[in-house]
């Protein structure tokens, strides 16, 4: 398949029961057009990795509204009542992950690390069932990488090779998710020819990006 694909080809990548990651924060930096395509498909029973589920009817929240997500790893769902409702009724199996730990567990996957050691969550429910390792007299929780099948990210600009530049606060989880999945697809506003982006200001290198979509 070509590096540059069309938005309708998203359905070819989707399989029931797979683990997807979607970048963004409160909908800012969500790949909104790709979310539209997921909703057009029949895919279901997805595991979703995202820092939050935005709000009802917006961004990632629409996948929740349409009951496509049955397992969720997120740091915050307080802004989405529908997510909370589906968790309480048992439709969604939720694992709340501290936001920095979520970022690092995703990065660990991209970086080929066996895990990360952190003090975040010590003495809380987050520590339950996890190994605690002591280094130089300090305790750390061992947090494991998150395995992701498919990551959907949003950038402002790409070149044909897939090098990316982001705008404003949209880098958030889009940057660490690139490269953390078996396949990463970037939705971008603009695609320019190779060589047109200043190599000093590339945020994400092409090697992390399998496909780009102009949308």
């Amino acid at each position, binding site marked *: 398949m070509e590096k540059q694909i069309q938005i309708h080809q998203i359905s070819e990548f989707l399989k029931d029961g797979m683990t997807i990651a979607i970048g963004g924060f409160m909908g800012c930096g969500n790949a909104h057009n790709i979310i539209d395509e997921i909703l057009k498909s029949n895919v279901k029973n997805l595991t979703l990795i995202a820092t939050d589920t935005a709000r009802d009817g917006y961004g990632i929240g629409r996948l929740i509204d349409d009951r496509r997500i049955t397992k969720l790893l997120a740091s915050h769902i307080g802004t989405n009542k529908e997510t909370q409702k589906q968790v309480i009724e048992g439709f969604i199996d939720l694992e709340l992950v*501290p936001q920095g730990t979520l970022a*690092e567990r995703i990065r660990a996957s991209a970086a080929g690390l066996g895990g990360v050691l952190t003090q975040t*969550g010590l003495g809380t429910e987050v520590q339950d069932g996890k190994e605690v390792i002591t280094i130089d007299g300090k305790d750390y929780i061992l947090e494991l990488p998150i395995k992701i099948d498919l990551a959907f990210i949003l950038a402002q600009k790409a070149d044909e090779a897939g090098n990316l530049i982001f705008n404003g606060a949209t*880098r958030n*989880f889009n940057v660490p998710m690139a490269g953390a999945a078996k396949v990463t697809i970037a939705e971008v506003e603009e695609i320019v020819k190779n060589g047109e982006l200043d190599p000093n200001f590339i945020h994400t290198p092409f090697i992390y990006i399998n496909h780009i979509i102009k949308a």
Partner: protein
Amino acid sequence: MEAKQIIAARVAQEFKNGDFVNLGIGLPTLAVDYISKDIHINLHSENGFAGVWDKANEDNIDKDVVDAGGTNVVLQKGGIFFDSVTSFEIIRGGHLDMTVLGALEVDEEGNLANWKIPGKLLPGMGGAMDLVNGAKKVIISMVHTARGNPKILKKCTLPLTGKGVVDMIITEMGVFEFINNKLHLTQLSKGVSLEEIKALTPASYIVALKD
């Protein structure tokens, strides 16, 4: 002044020129309105920027810039953007001078609960667990009681956000500080007596009022 204004104004007195500070959503963020004009501080928004920012208006709105509460904002000149890994390296690596957070409960051991009420409220911890473990100073800003029920307890009853992490508690009634791991009442608000604050504070504390 209303309770929240009293708290916000007192929180702002903790800021020093050049501080790099993360403020939680809601009451902690109100402190921005009371920052002294004589100092410049950098604020940190965990979704990926730092500096000083304003609410966006129709003319300058950029859909790609929202604060940690999801409100469209505009970063002033001198501000910087970064991704979530960098953002949480700043938080977890001890680079933040201070974080100000709200609380459901705090206790005399410096434990904090602010992310979950089992069976009732399930917002999630967001970045709070990272902030309380990473920031050099953790300040809790909150109203002293919730519907008349005390929030500064002997022991937290709700699931913890962090263990032994709190450095200071600022309420409309006064200021508490952890000094050598012991809770001290260091300031009483105008018109509040020692007896009144004691009646609403089950935690054990040492009275050590400054000036």
